[in-house]
């Protein structure tokens, strides 16, 4: 430390007097209100964070950084401890150097970082990273790893430690069942339920009968849950509800989402996170489009709704024009303006890749296009478009209702 002047505190000295003048106002840091039923996490791939929006007001409440390799994993919220967990990846030199995998723990009121839990496996990363990091009960997080094994790392949030790696060769995903069980989908057309002991270590697993064909008609990773049941949807539009309440997972129901006329018009499920379930009403939401084999990641112009009890379709929701909403917000166009109407008319709608539904009595359905930073908010009962969550980042394939 030499040179023209060794004046360590120059910047302090110069800046400080300003604050001493007429401090009519005091800068402070906001806190988060209690997590509401209509909140939604919106990950952005470019800024590597998740914005927390209030679906009712359309406002941003706060954000959680989620450094990752491709898509930030959406944060996990445990109300009983009032904590938010983010499964993160960092390199010591930005994109170079030593890799570290860790769970960051945040206070859910202040959003301040509390502590981290480093773990020795390498968490998977993909375009959607769907079902890659999930809560198992309130105590554990299961993290899906892809290399060198496909496996699940169990993290104990109470003891703040990595428990162990459970190798799940040929299977993928973490589908929570109860406080000590999760499921995975396997390449031979089955699902396995994996049970942990009290401390989170592997106890046993049980495998279902084969219920889908990976080549002919595989089920998507995107799926919806009601209690101890998960409903999976296949590329060709077959729904399979698996019941995990007994030891061995069994197929509780299996039906086709499309009738013959719809199939001949090539209506089929597709998108990125294109399946959602509202637990209390037992309604299944699926993004639908018209296309052939290989179109399973295309966005859809509609969300179809089924009552899973009767297996009858009860709704067909149109998509708001998210392209117009996205570009309009950058151009400073308000939603109730004439220009907005014109944009809606002129611009082609990008369609929907991703949906998520809130789990309360008056549910909202959040819809997004993976390449547009604008989220549509629909009344999940009627399909009415309520509002847009604008400036929601630039790109991201997923959503999560906390």
């Amino acid at each position: 430390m030499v040179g023209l002047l060794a004046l360590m505190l120059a910047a302090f000295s110069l800046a400080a007097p300003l604050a001493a003048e007429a401090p009519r106002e005091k800068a402070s840091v906001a806190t988060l209100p209690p997590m509401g039923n209509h909140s939604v996490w919106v990950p952005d791939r470019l800024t590597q964070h998740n914005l927390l929006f209030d679906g009712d007001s359309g406002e941003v409440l706060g954000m959680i950084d989620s450094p990752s390799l491709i898509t930030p994993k959406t944060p996990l919220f445990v109300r009983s401890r009032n904590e938010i967990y983010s499964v993160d990846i960092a390199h010591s030199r930005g994109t170079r150097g030593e890799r570290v995998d860790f769970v960051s723990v945040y206070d859910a009121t202040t959003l301040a970082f509390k502590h981290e839990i480093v773990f020795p496996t390498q968490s998977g990363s993909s375009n959607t990273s769907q079902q890659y990091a999930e809560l198992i009960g309130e105590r554990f997080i299961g993290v899906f790893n892809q290399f060198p094994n496909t496996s699940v790392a169990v993290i104990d949030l109470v003891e703040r430690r990595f428990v162990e790696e459970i190798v799940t060769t040929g299977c993928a995903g973490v589908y929570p069942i109860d406080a000590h069980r999760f499921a995975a989908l396997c390449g031979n057309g089955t699902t396995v339920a994996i049970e942990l002991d009290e401390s989170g270590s592997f106890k046993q697993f049980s495998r279902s009968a084969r219920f889908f064909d990976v080549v002919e008609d595989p089920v998507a990773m995107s799926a919806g849950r009601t209690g101890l049941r998960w409903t999976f949807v296949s590329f060709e539009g077959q729904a399979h509800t698996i019941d995990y309440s007994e030891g061995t997972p069994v197929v509780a129901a299996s039906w086709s989402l499309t009738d013959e006329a719809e199939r001949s018009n090539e209506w089929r499920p597709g998108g990125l996170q294109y399946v959602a379930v509202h637990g209390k009403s037992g309604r299944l939401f699926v993004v639908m489009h018209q296309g052939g084999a290989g179109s399973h990641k295309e966005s859809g112009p509609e969300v179809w709704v089924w009552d899973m009890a009767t297996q009858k379709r009860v709704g067909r929701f149109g998509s708001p024009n998210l392209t117009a909403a996205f570009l309009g917000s950058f151009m400073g166009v308000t939603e109730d303006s004439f220009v907005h109407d014109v944009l809606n008319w002129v611009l082609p709608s990008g369609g929907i890749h991703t949906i998520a539904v809130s789990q309360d009595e008056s549910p909202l359905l959040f819809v997004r296009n993976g390449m547009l930073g604008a989220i549509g908010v629909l009344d999940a009962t009627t399909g009415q478009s309520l509002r847009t969550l604008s400036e929601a980042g630039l790109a991201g394939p997923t959503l999560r209702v906390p």
Partner: protein
Amino acid sequence: MKGLDEWLEQRARKIARNTSRRTFLARLGGMLAGGAALPLLPVARASAGPDSARVPAPDETIEGPEGDPKSCEYWRHCAIDGSACACCGGSSTTCPPGTEISPVTWIGTCRNPADGKEYLISYNDCCGKTFCGRCICNRNEGERPEYHWYRNNDINWCAGATSQVYNCSIAVVVGQATESQPEK
């Protein structure tokens, strides 16, 4: 970082109490190599009176975007560069949850359309979370290059915080100004 923030403010108040402003500035000027003077700090000419703490708070009853802290046209935003924190979980004077207020800032001098007065605005960066990315504003009234640093809005002012990661900017009224470029 709250500790440093408070320490800075206390330190500033102490300096302000114990040193006449001219003396303080002269001393600062003298610290410059070669004795060349720093441009005078705006506080020397900015304050409306000897006891500026009694200056009334600015009138915020303003219709339209000039009264909306989420708008780039908000009257306090005349020299902002970045995301307005009101769109990011904060407000015009509140950083979003989990961020940290930068202890050093740049300033602007903005005219309040409600009372017609010029106010000194401290643009504190909120730090420690990635770029909010909403309500991105860039206005440059009285903005100056980096060598005139306390009027420069290009600088990442999170440099003075624990984490230098920039999230968004708030616009806090710190006093009244008699002119728009009081360091003139």
